[in-house]
């Protein structure tokens, strides 16, 4: 869509802007060619009207050769050539017009006087054409940056959406069903323990729900959520697991998206410890290094465990997507298996209440 031709009001405004140009041209023609005021105006008005439309065509060549995809030399070459051709044609039209005027014996001897203004016409033509070229390039650049901004906006909305979806998907219903089944077992055998487990499960759920609205929380808060989760799993799995934590003190205060690590720990249970007859371990390391917070969640697993018939790894995928959406290149996420050891390592910018440290 041509930015000026697409609307009548813009075209009118554009043509209006050419009136002072026509006046200037008339003045120059009168001064250099010795044309009378009437002669100069009769020539410059139709010529400028014509040239206004010629300059509109520059838009198409500008769009065809985006400034970002050609060298300056190439751009100059193309557009200067076009400008010379356009002004050449323009001069021809001027001579034709003068010839007509002379023929109609309106302004006798006009053709002769006009030939003296040819350098002025050529110069004006080239300058005006190149001026419109640069005007259109500026316009194109503005358009591109607006588009980029709209895209970035869209990406932000999408990231936020993904995050909300991720948060909703966090609490694994099977964790709930299995925990409820454990409570059901305890009600008759150990009522006090059943109550304790209800409280722990309630505590975990309440924390999870409360976190949905926050964009980041200190690692310390995420850790206490993990502890609530582990307290429930301890009753389910009994002595089958060992948790090791290695968290540097300064890391505890760093911001992390809520529910970033809990799914990783839960994954360590469902795909690791739950498949180990003799039980297994989970280790969580966190430390700050060169402005980045680096976290490793490791667990033991059985490489010969039955293939899961259930879709899993959703937790891992979620964490990866959320890191990508929020931090882009500033975060990393790696999964590695080594023998019977499964480890997820991730880094994200070390920030505290939104400020880099």
């Amino acid at each position, binding site marked *: 869509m041509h930015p000026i031709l697409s609307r009548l009001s813009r075209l009118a405004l554009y043509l209006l802007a050419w009136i002072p140009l026509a006046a200037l041209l008339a003045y120059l023609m009168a001064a250099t060619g010795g044309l009378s005021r009437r002669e100069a105006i009769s020539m410059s008005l139709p010529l400028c009207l014509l040239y206004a439309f010629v300059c509109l065509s520059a838009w198409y060549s500008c769009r065809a050769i985006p400034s970002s995809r050609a060298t300056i030399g190439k751009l100059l070459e193309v557009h200067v050539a076009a400008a010379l051709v356009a002004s050449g044609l323009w001069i021809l039209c001027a001579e034709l017009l003068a010839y007509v005027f002379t023929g109609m014996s309106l302004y006798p001897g006009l053709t002769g006087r006009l030939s003296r203004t040819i350098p002025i016409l050529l110069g004006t033509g080239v300058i005006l054409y190149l001026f419109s070229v640069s005007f259109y390039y500026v316009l194109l650049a503005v358009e591109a940056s607006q588009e980029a901004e709209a895209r970035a906006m869209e990406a932000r909305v999408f990231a936020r959406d993904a995050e909300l979806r991720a948060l909703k998907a966090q609490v694994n219903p099977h964790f709930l069903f*299995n925990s409820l089944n*454990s409570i059901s*077992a305890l009600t008759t055998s150990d009522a006090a323990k059943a109550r304790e487990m209800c409280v722990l499960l309630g505590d975990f759920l309440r924390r999870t729900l409360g976190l949905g609205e926050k964009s980041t929380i200190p690692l310390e808060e995420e850790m206490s959520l993990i502890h609530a989760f582990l307290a429930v799993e301890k009753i389910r*799995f009994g002595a089958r697991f060992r948790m090791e934590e290695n968290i540097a003190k300064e890391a505890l205060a760093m911001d992390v998206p809520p529910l970033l690590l809990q799914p990783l720990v839960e994954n360590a249970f469902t795909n690791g410890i739950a498949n*180990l*007859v003799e039980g297994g371990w989970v280790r969580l390391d966190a430390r700050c290094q060169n402005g980045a917070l680096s976290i490793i969640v490791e667990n033991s697993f059985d490489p010969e465990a*039955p*293939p899961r018939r259930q879709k899993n790894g959703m937790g891992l995928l979620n964490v990866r997507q959320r890191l990508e959406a929020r931090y882009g290149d500033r975060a990393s996420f790696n999964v590695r298996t080594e023998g019977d050891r499964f480890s997820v390592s991730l880094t994200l910018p070390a920030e505290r209440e939104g400020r880099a440290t």
Partner: protein
Amino acid sequence: MNSRKDTKIRAVIVDDEELARQVIRELLSSHPEIEVVGECANGFEAVKIVTETKPDLIFLDIQMPKLDGFEVLELIGTGNAIIFVTAYDSYAIRAFEVHAVDYLLKPFGAERFEAALERAKERLDSKSPSAAVPAAELAATARPPAQYLERIPVRDGAQVFIIPVSKLDFAEAQDDYVALSTEGKKHLKQQPISSLEAALDPSRFLRIHRSYIVNLERVAKVEPYGKDSHVAVLRNGVQLPVSRAGYARLRAFLGR
């Protein structure tokens, strides 16, 4: 089997969580006609305990260490009444495809449990031993679509072996069994060769003969043998007969 009224129903509980087993044990305690003869927490033990105690009724979890519930069922056969007990509702259809008596979703109440027990008793009373279909065949048909076998559980008495399909050289039909050849050893499994063929990835395994399926990665060369038959020579030197139809399939595959 008509002596059901006087003898107890022998039951086994398989679940990797002690508390989950406890629920079942407790709900069974009001049923003097049922005796719990064994409990275990993983797939290998389940096969062992079932082989040794020959129970009538099995409460079987699905996701557990070593072997999952379906793999256990594949190895122990369908001679027993199976009640699946799991927190996952997504296996229900498959569970009934392998002729499970019932499918209990955790957590469940006494009423639901009683209903499952009733169904199990009906099944045990009506069942004639000959009705048992090879479990491996059932398990193969119940496999989720577009998902090929990754490992084959086999058992020798009470001992269980897991053969990853990447280590399977070839399979040979022997009456009602298939002999699975892996790393120079052979393991027998009660399963028709056609159902094994259907469960294996067709881009990796090919039926080259009425009685043979071969792992294509193991084939070193195919040579003419006699007038119009061929043999496939495996990397370990073993020669397998190739039928005319098998040769056509092999050529079509290699031609691609």
